[in-house]
């Protein structure tokens, strides 16, 4: 519900991360959403001179082959792969290989290029020791192969990148013309164009007439699922807009998401909670397997839910809500004293420092359950009395917190193993209505991700809208970083 930037800048997060954050219930200082930060190129890094290892011709050839495939990981290759292995060219080649190693393992962005809300960040990484080790042990290819993020989600996106680049190379797809909604039973040129467009991404759609038949309807529903839209089977404005995103933009979207995978820890805890902010969905993993999922509501544009990792340490049943000043000023004070009283708000303090607190209860904006984890943004997972929002397909409506459709289920699951907080005890506490904090028997990691492109094992590629425009912001930064890397390479 509440999302409050507390610090102007974030420290680098490591996972699982426990930042010395302010207490979530404290009344924070509110800041207006800052303007998008401009990308400031850092000063050129003057690397200390390093004694280059002597590589055999075979090893230099190996490096060239590796760099030739760098683009498959969405990393722009350097220009150092064609020269014969003179000593000078070998140095250039090694520098290019080190640049690629760092980019594919850690990502291209420098710390200062991260947006404030991109709180999930990679640790510093120097490929040099690993590279020397690989040269000495003559296993360069194996070492380079070990560097990309070791996750299925990255590998499936890599395949998707190859596929969508092929589509782009083949001309992409034509923009579908606007008009009245296309519905089953329709026919004509627009339907023919729709069928052609769908078939480019959906091999299950057979060739057929220019008629909106059952095959087209099913293909539209599949496409709508891939785009996170309601699968109505008809093509309205939102579906048309998703179908008309150019293939080139889809390639950039995949590359941006691959970069985000590089920000993840090298290993995730086996027991964890993952949220996709863009999809507004939460999944609980136990022993690395998904065991529970539910719909969520995440921050609306302007009140973005930040990407982060942390550890949930406790659950508050029947929590009061300390209203952030900005929300109180913007949304509550204007409604008057009668409204505030009828909705359980009380004024704490007086004068300019007066603040609002909403008592626990059925009207509390935090609902009956709040999951606390330390973070510098003042966000958490919680229940909500606004259950209707979960029926929507687009569920970006909060002030930055993550609202949950089934918080009690999650509470009981995360409290498993507690002798005090059995499921019955949870129910009793909720029924009683008084505010009580339940510490988790074991802290559980929580990751708030922002995935707008992901591919299933069967090759189905889903593209969600980019509600926060973080894909385009990241793609621009990646280009800037890649250009800078090339300049630095040329200057060496």
């Amino acid at each position: 519900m509440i999302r409050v930037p507390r610090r102007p800048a974030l420290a680098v997060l490591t996972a699982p991360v426990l930042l010395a954050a302010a207490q979530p219930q404290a009344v924070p200082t509110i800041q207006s959403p800052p303007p998008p930060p401009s990308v400031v190129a850092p000063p050129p890094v003057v690397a200390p001179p390093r004694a280059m290892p002597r590589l055999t011709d075979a090893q230099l050839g190996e490096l060239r082959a590796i760099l030739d495939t760098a683009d498959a990981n969405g990393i722009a290759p350097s220009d150092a792969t064609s020269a014969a292995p003179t000593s000078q060219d070998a140095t250039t080649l090694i520098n290019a290989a080190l640049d690629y190693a760092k980019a594919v393992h850690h990502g291209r962005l420098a710390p200062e290029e991260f947006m404030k809300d991109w709180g999930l960040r990679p640790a510093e990484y120097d490929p040099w020791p690993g590279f020397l080790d690989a040269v000495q042990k003559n296993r360069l290819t194996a070492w380079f192969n070990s560097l990309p993020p070791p996750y299925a989600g990255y590998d499936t996106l890599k395949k998707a990148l190859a596929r969508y680049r092929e589509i782009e190379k083949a001309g992409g797809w034509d923009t579908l013309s606007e008009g009245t909604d296309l519905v089953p039973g329709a026919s004509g040129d627009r339907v023919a164009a729709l069928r052609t467009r769908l078939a480019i991404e959906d091999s299950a759609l057979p060739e057929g007439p220019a008629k909106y038949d059952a095959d087209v309807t099913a293909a539209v529903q599949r496409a709508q699922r891939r785009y996170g839209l309601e699968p109505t089977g008809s093509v309205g404005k939102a579906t048309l807009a998703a179908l008309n995103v150019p293939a080139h933009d889809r390639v950039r979207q995949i590359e941006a998401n691959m970069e985000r995978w590089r920000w993840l820890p090298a290993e995730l805890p086996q027991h964890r909670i993952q949220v996709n902010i863009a999809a507004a969905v939460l999944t609980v993993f136990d022993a690395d397997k998904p065991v529970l999922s539910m719909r969520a509501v995440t921050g609306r544009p302007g009140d973005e839910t930040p990407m982060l990792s942390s550890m949930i340490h406790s659950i508050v049943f029947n929590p009061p809500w300390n209203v952030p000043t900005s929300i109180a000023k913007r949304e509550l004070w204007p409604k008057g004293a009668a409204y505030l009283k009828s909705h359980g708000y009380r004024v704490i303090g007086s004068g300019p420092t007066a603040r609002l607190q909403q008592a626990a209860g059925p009207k509390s904006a935090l609902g009956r359950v709040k999951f606390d984890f330390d973070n510098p943004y003042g966000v958490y997972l919680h229940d909500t009395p606004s259950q209707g929002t979960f029926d929507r397909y687009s569920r970006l409506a909060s002030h930055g917190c993550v609202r949950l459709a089934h918080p009690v289920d999650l509470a009981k699951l995360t409290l498993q193993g507690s002798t005090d907080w059995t499921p019955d005890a949870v129910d009793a506490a909720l029924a009683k209505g008084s505010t009580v904090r339940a510490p988790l028997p074991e802290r559980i990691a929580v990751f708030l991700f922002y995935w707008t492109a992901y591919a299933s094992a069967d090759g189905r590629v889903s593209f969600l809208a980019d509600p926060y425009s973080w894909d385009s912001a990241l793609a621009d930064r990646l280009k800037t970083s890649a250009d800078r890397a090339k300049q630095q390479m040329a200057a060496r």
Partner: protein
Amino acid sequence: MRRRLPILAGATLLALFAAACHKPEEPAANESNVTEPAKPAPPPAPKVEKPVEAPKAEAPKAPPPPEVMPDQQVLDDADATGMTARTDRGSDGDAGAAANGGEGQ
């Protein structure tokens, strides 16, 4: 199948009843040669229109999408929140981390 017989029987009865009621009013074509009944005004020739999108009101509704079973929904949601199953990168799977002095990104 179990429902078909009664339905068929009912339909037959209904057809019989309907036939009994309406047949006399609709002489067979070969019995109506005494006076040519006034031809009803021919219906306006159907407009041969270019195939266009069907108007909304007449459009058949799209069938509901196939239901997703709860277990499958959890798997789909897991895909959406990040396919974080680890992949085997070979024997050098942690070479990057090890060579970097132990990595905890």
